[in-house]
């Protein structure tokens, strides 16, 4: 039987030509599949002759995106071949097809080891290259010794490759760094630039990874300075010249190593001062290559302990870069200035106008850098001018910038606003021009800001109202506006604005606008919530109460559960609790800010004439103990108590019906905090506290559930009783009210009650009714504690009492263990 010989596999170039003639993806795939099949059978025949050609074709098809892993073993066979051609393709294939995740790559190790010791340097070079590009940790461990040997060879072709191979080994197996130390001894005395360059890279890698190495290599600074000097001073060297500069690659790497060595070290920094100044002043800047060196020099100057003169020189170079026609140079300058703006703020300020001009650059990357840098440069002196530019930028920039720019404007305005009116105007401007891009947390922040700008209320609400008439699509704007109208609608209709011409608007018109928000398709559910609450609040500020009642009752059957719940609650407010409605819907007091981006914590009431409600608080996150709580922990020393969050005492006594209002204090009936509980309260918030906010325990009768009261403490004339209730929606929450009374003849002032519970519980302490316990039992101080007890464990509590009595400070600790079982079961 005649054996039919397989035709020789087609040549690489022919295959490429053929595949390129394919007109569709399908045609190409067909050709590839056909060829792959041929290659597979050729591989099966174990044909040495054509293996190289076939693998090369496979690599081409791999580049087109087709799978080629069946060629992996063939690559290994090629590497093991004696022919250079085979090895060349084999190693290339290994680098492209194999990777350290597959065990098969380890089969290379022996071949590489042999080839590292080959008689031909180009074979050694192939092995070093492959090891240095893709060697896995195991391979590096096995072969590090060979690499180290080659690092000491006098053959510069191999030495430079060994140096970079060593860098790779160190990156993969840092513990092996030590073994290369001896070989670095005279690396810098080489004349060959390739070896010099890779040596500097190796030294850099070692210094970056080990402070000991760094200290050890500091002594090389003089030598490095000399080499750099030679490069600059030497005449034209054709081999290394790039546009008149001698070996810029080496210069930059040396500058980078100097940076690392000089950082934080006075002596080294001083030793390199002169050369840096020389490079900075003498380098030709007409081409990119010169600027690359200048750029690296500037980075080095800024990082080491350079003299101030040198630093100013560096910043001025960056300033000149900003004016360069070349976009790349401008971009690089802005990036560097951004890095130095913290440390050399004043120097960078001098270039502010150039930086601001870059906001108008057409290039997107440059615009972004310029924006970041501009915000970093804003301060109290330049706020007005800078904000003008930044707002103009906000108007005209691409959408990708708007969110960041808006946030930046808010932050800067908050820090440096020259006046409240300016601040409000700036916010308005952002909301109207980029209102849909502002971040969610801006809304509560802005509301707080507006609330605190008391004299601007009329102006603010008027401007916001006018903005709503123009456009109701931008949700953050609409939400802030709704809230303001709900809060200050009376000022709006009474035309009290002083800052600008007051507009004439009737109650009905205002209600039309708000109702419009409720029905508009553009409004999100959150916005609708704001609108409904605003309408409700106007029931105490407007006269058209009937209209409001009607709207509220309609939404009592809304499909949106959130709206429905609110409407039902507000309905109830009209019907059953109408006597409380005015107090509940009163003007918000000033809120004191804790952090600009954090949850707001209302600490004091304002000094308005109307009696103020103990306002809705954002329950602070349980994870942040106050200082007092920390003290408590220290004192109690126990690890099993959870710190208590203490809300401080209001400076004015609560209005009549104190207890009830304390409980009500949880309910956010005003539009502010409630509509966005998710955004204003951090997510670490335990769920039950939110339950308390949104569901109204008050509107169901809080059954005392027959839990008997108890005396928790009775000493030195101070008696503290506990009474109990259950918060109905959640049976795991016990609501305890403490009643403190004082039977001595003198008042107890500065009275503070603190409590701690074991870890399985969670505790919330609300504001006390007062901090003075009057003498002779003339009154009590009450305070509400809410305890979450999900594991139904026995309730225990440690309490700490501090007060001033007859001029002296008194402090006492006690444990409360006699809780009635019904309070925690």
């Amino acid at each position, binding site marked *: 039987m005649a054996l039919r010989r397989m035709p020789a596999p087609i040549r690489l170039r022919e295959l490429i030509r053929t595949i390129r003639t394919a007109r569709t993806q399908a045609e190409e795939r067909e050709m590839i599949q056909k060829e792959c099949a041929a290659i597979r059978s050729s591989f099966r025949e174990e044909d040495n002759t054509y293996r190289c050609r076939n693998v090369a074709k496979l690599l081409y098809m791999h580049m087109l995106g087709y799978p080629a892993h069946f060629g992996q073993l063939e690559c290994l066979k090629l590497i093991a071949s004696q022919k250079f051609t085979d090895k*060349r393709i084999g190693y290339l294939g290994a680098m492209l097809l194999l990777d350290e995740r597959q065990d098969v790559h380890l089969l290379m190790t022996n071949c590489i080891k042999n080839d590292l010791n080959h008689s031909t340097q180009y074979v050694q070079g192939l092995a070093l290259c492959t090891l240095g590009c893709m060697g896995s940790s195991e391979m590096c461990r096995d072969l590090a010794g060979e690499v180290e040997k080659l690092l000491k060879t006098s053959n510069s072709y191999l030495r430079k490759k060994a140096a970079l191979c060593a860098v790779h080994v160190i990156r993969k197996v840092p513990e092996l760094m030590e073994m290369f130390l001896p070989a670095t001894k005279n690396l810098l005395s080489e004349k060959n630039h390739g070896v010099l360059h890779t040596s500097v890279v190796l030294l850099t890698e070692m210094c970056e990874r080990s402070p000991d190495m760094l200290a050890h290599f500091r002594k090389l600074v003089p030598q490095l300075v000399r080499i750099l000097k030679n490069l600059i001073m030497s005449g034209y060297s054709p081999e290394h010249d790039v546009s008149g500069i001698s070996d810029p690659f080496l210069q930059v790497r040396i500058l980078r190593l100097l940076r690392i060595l000089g950082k934080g070290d006075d002596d080294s920094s001083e030793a390199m001062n002169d050369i840096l100044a020389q490079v900075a002043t003498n380098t030709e800047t007409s081409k990119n290559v010169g600027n690359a060196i200048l750029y690296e020099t500037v980075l080095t100057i800024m990082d080491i302990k350079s003299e101030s003169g040198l630093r100013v020189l560096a910043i001025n170079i960056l300033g000149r870069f900003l004016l360069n026609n070349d976009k790349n140079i401008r971009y690089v300058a802005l990036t560097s200035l951004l890095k130095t703006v913290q440390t050399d703020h004043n120097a960078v300020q001098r270039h502010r106008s150039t930086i601001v001009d870059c906001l108008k650059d057409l290039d997107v990357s440059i615009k972004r850098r310029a924006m970041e840098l501009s915000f970093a440069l804003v301060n109290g002196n330049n706020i007005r001018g800078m904000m003008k530019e930044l707002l103009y930028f906000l108007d005209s920039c691409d959408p990708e910038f708007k969110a960041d720019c808006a946030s930046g404007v808010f932050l800067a305005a908050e820090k440096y606003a020259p006046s409240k009116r300016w601040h409000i105007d700036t916010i308005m401007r952002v909301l109207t021009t980029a209102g849909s891009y502002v971040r969610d947390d801006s809304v509560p922040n802005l509301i707080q800001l507006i609330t605190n700008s008391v004299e601007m209320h009329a102006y603010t609400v008027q401007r916001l109202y006018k903005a709503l008439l123009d456009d109701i699509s931008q949700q953050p704007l609409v939400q802030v506006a709704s809230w303001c109208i709900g809060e200050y609608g009376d000022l709006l209709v009474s035309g009290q604005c002083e800052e600008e011409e007051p507009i004439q608007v009737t109650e009905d018109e205002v209600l039309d606008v708000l109702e419009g928000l409720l029905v508009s398709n553009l409004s999100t559910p959150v916005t609708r919530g704001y609108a409904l609450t605003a309408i409700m609040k106007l029931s105490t500020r407007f006269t058209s109460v009937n209209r409001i009642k009607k709207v509220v009752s309609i939404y009592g059957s809304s499909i949106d559960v959130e709206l429905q719940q609110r409407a039902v609650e507000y309905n109830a407010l009209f019907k059953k609790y109408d006597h409380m409605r005015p107090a509940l819907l009163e003007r918000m007091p000033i809120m004191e800010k804790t952090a600009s981006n954090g949850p707001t914590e209302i600490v004091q009431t304002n000094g308005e004439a109307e009696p103020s409600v103990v306002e809705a608080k954002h329950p602070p996150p349980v994870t942040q103990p106050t200082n007092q709580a920390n003290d408590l922990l220290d004192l109690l020393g126990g690890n099993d108590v959870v710190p208590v969050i203490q809300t401080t005492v209001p400076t004015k006594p609560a209005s009549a019906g104190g207890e009830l209002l304390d409980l009500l204090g949880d309910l956010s009936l005003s539009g502010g905090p409630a509509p966005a509980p998710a955004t204003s309260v951090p997510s670490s918030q335990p769920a039950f506290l939110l339950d308390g906010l949104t569901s109204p325990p008050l509107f169901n009768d809080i059954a005392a559930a027959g839990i008997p009261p108890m005396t928790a403490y009775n000493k030195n004339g101070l008696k503290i009783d506990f009474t109990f209730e259950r918060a109905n929606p959640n049976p795991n929450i016990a609501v305890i009210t403490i009643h403190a009374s004082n039977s001595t003849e003198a008042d107890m002032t500065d009275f503070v009650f603190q409590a701690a519970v074991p870890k399985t519980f969670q505790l919330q302490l609300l504001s006390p009714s007062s901090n003075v316990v009057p003498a002779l039992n003339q009154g009590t101080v009450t305070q509400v504690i809410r305890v979450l007890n999900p594991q139904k464990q026995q309730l225990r509590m440690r309490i700490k009492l501090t007060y001033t009595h007859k001029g002296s400070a008194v402090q006492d600790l006690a444990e409360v263990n006699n809780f009635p079982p019904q309070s925690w079961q």
Partner: protein
Amino acid sequence: MMRFMLLFSRQGKLRLQKWFTSMSDREKKKIIRDMTTMVLARQPRSCNFMQWKDLKIVYKRYASLYFCLGVESQENELLALEIIHRYVELLDKYFGNVCELDIIFNFEKAYFILDEFLMGGEVQETSKQIVNRSIEASDMLQEDDSSEWYEVELFG
């Protein structure tokens, strides 16, 4: 260090891929997709630098080919442009007025040249002449192979 170098045409066809760190095929494909999309979307006179995740992307167009380098954040971008340019010069010297077709049909040579210029994500040799001489010498070694044993030309 440099993390990768990609060459692709204006239609987004990959012509060369060099990876300097170990990555899965999926990750590589994603990077190729992202780079081609980002670079091809750039305006003609934009600056040559972009930020992508924690890397700086340096790219430059030479005729119909885009050269794209992904480098770590401490690298000098302006020098990276010089690196790209040096590679193009090396290709040009080797192929004589190099064009995209040269790289398509001789991709393995493009890799060999790259492997004499860069290694492990760093510049290996700063002299053009030395790189060229190494490649020529290696090519001659290949010819020795073929003339000794085989008549068949292994590379068309």
